[in-house]
């Protein structure tokens, strides 16, 4: 150890209680920030998994130009035709950054139980890809509970059931449907007597529902369907309306072979914007009038974008608060230390230490104290996180039905970044505290009664 580092270490041992208190403030502040970063990272991962997989938006969605906003109003005009679907799918399959893609058809209509019909907002899904989506590792890690049906099995399990649909819990309740297909596999659907006193029991006795809608050509259409599962809606807004069906079922209802959009699911989320731009450019070069939308586009996922903005602002203010507390602790400790050692500083200056060398001496002390405190803080944070994750606390995310198991998962890069941020703030605080004293005349320092 060089003399300057040795002196710094020895100086830290002078006022152990004060340095311990300062170190404790740094350690706890750092631990709090690491825990917070772990919470926010999990929050982001959960929200992203919900947006990309549970809501079927993909990392990148390919719409006909204008389709994002207008496909609801003019679904026929803004659909992707069979030929366009093939081109988009082939283009996405050729991009190594794309893990897989899936087509989706959005539509509205009425779903009835024979006596009562309520509006639904439907999403037609490719059953093979639906299984891949719901069993994706990101879903299984971040929100496995949301992928599990409340009753019945996954929609993708019912490839042989004609007209298989999943209803959101609220929608199933509105229709009075209490049993799914597996619970009443042999039930024969008969038109109920809507005036019968036991109507509710009769409706609940089978899983049959009827879908009705206006086709893309403006005609009336209806299909029989079987409620194979009850699922959580992907947001509170759709709790009473969400209906998932196989893509062919909804295409039959709307009498189309088109889809509303094709979603691309990527290997690496960081490639999202690049893939969106590249794919749109390639498809336009092939003559398709399409636009691509990333999952973090506010028009696509306002909930995700809004919540992330809120979390980021919360992170910013908490970071600011913690940094201010630890910086003030350091300024206070360093200022006291400098005042106590005024004459010693004069002695060192007389012996030939330059102003910068004195500042470096204090900066070394801060660096040592900060490093030790950050190590302690990391141990505290990792311990707290391990205990927290082991308890398996369930929370209800705002705006999303159901509960999820909350985890804290800080990353090495984030934690190192926070440590660096704290170290720089504290070195800056020390520099400010020391600067004035080191610029004082040597004779004035030597004349001090302290130190």
């Amino acid at each position, binding site marked *: 150890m060089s003399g300057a580092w*040795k*002196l710094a270490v020895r100086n830290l041992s002078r006022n152990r209680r004060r340095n311990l208190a300062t170190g404790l403030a740094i350690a706890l502040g750092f631990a709090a920030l690491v825990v917070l970063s772990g919470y926010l990272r999990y929050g982001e991962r959960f929200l992203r998994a919900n947006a990309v997989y549970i809501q079927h938006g993909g990392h990148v969605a390919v719409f006909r130009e204008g389709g994002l906003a207008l496909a609801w109003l003019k679904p026929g005009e803004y659909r992707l035709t069979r030929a366009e679907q093939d081109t988009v799918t082939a283009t996405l399959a050729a991009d190594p950054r794309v893990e897989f893609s899936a087509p989706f058809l959005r539509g509205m209509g009425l779903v009835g139980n024979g006596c009562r019909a309520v509006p639904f907002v439907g999403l037609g899904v490719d059953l093979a890809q639906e299984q891949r989506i719901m069993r994706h590792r990101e879903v299984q890690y971040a929100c496995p509970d949301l992928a599990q049906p409340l009753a019945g099995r996954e929609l993708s399990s019912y490839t042989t059931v004609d007209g298989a649909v999943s209803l959101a819990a609220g929608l199933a309740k509105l229709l009075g449907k209490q049993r799914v297909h597996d619970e009443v596999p042999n039930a024969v659907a008969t038109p109920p007597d809507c005036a019968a006193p036991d109507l509710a029991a009769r409706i609940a006795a089978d899983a049959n529902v009827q879908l009705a809608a206006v086709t893309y050509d403006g005609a009336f259409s209806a299909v029989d369907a079987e409620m194979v599962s009850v699922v959580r809606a992907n947001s509170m807004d759709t709790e009473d309306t969400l209906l998932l069906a196989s893509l062919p079922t909804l295409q039959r209802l709307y009498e189309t072979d088109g889809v509303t959009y094709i979603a691309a699911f990527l290997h690496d989320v960081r490639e999202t914007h690049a893939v969106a731009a590249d794919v749109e450019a390639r498809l336009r070069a092939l003559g398709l009038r399409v636009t691509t939308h990333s999952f973090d586009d506010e028009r696509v996922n306002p909930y995700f974008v809004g919540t992330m903005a809120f979390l980021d602002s919360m992170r910013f203010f908490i970071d600011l608060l913690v940094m201010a507390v630890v910086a003030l602790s350091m300024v206070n400790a360093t200022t006291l230390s400098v005042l106590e050692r005024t*004459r*010693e500083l004069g*002695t*060192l200056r007389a012996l030939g230490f*330059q102003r910068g060398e004195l500042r470096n001496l204090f900066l070394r002390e801060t660096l040592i104290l900060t490093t030790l405190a950050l190590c302690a803080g990391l141990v505290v944070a990792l311990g707290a996180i391990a205990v927290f994750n082991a308890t398996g606390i369930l929370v209800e995310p705002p705006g999303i039905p159901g509960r999820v198991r909350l985890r804290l998962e800080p990353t090495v890069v984030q934690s190192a970044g926070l440590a660096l941020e704290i170290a720089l703030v504290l070195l800056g605080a020390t520099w400010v505290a020391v600067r004035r004293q080191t610029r004082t005349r*040597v*004779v004035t320092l030597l004349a001090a009664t302290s130190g």
Partner: protein
Amino acid sequence: MPNAFIRLDAVHKTYRLGETTVPALRGVTLDLHKGEFTAIVGPSGAGKSTLLHLVGCIDEPDRGVVLVEGTDVATLSDDERSRLRNRKIGFIFQSFNLVPVLDARENIELPLLLHGHVSTSERAARVQQALEDVGIAGFAHHLPDRLSGGQRQRVAIARALVTHPLLVLADEPTANLDSATAHHILDLMVELNEKRGVTFLFSTHDEKLIRRVGRVVQISDGLLVDTPSTAARA
């Protein structure tokens, strides 16, 4: 005067105490020569410490010139003055001014840490030599608060000598010591002056000590009573 390696020429220094200005030095001219053992004597407030501060380049005159080996100190930057002090001047303080968290050896080594060209082994050898020169080799690993006043001042002297300076300045080095210890310290300084050729300039108001010094410079009210040309030489 030829061969003067430090020269003060018509130096003035005034301190401001609130609304009052106090003249500490009023046109002092003084030459210091290598190998001299010089005492600055005078009553409290006469300007002894101010004179030492100016010679030691830790303060600047209001008027006049301080030359160290022909260089006007006023033309040097703060960092250059620091380096000059480190390389050419040793300091001994009345209150010893040792760093309390460093032991005797480490305190002595302190100014050598700024000598980048001195190797670790040479540094250790120089520190050991300095410890032996002042007779406290047995206390090398004692912290200052475990040493007596005399021992602490010996450490301070060793620290001043370890860089092989041109000049050692001692501001009332015996003021905080009992009479016997004060004489031992002075004996040590005289011995270092005579045997090792170390140049000393120290301030004191102790008449007993003055008798043993080669050259005495009297100062009173900021003026030299005996000018360098009239001062007694060893």
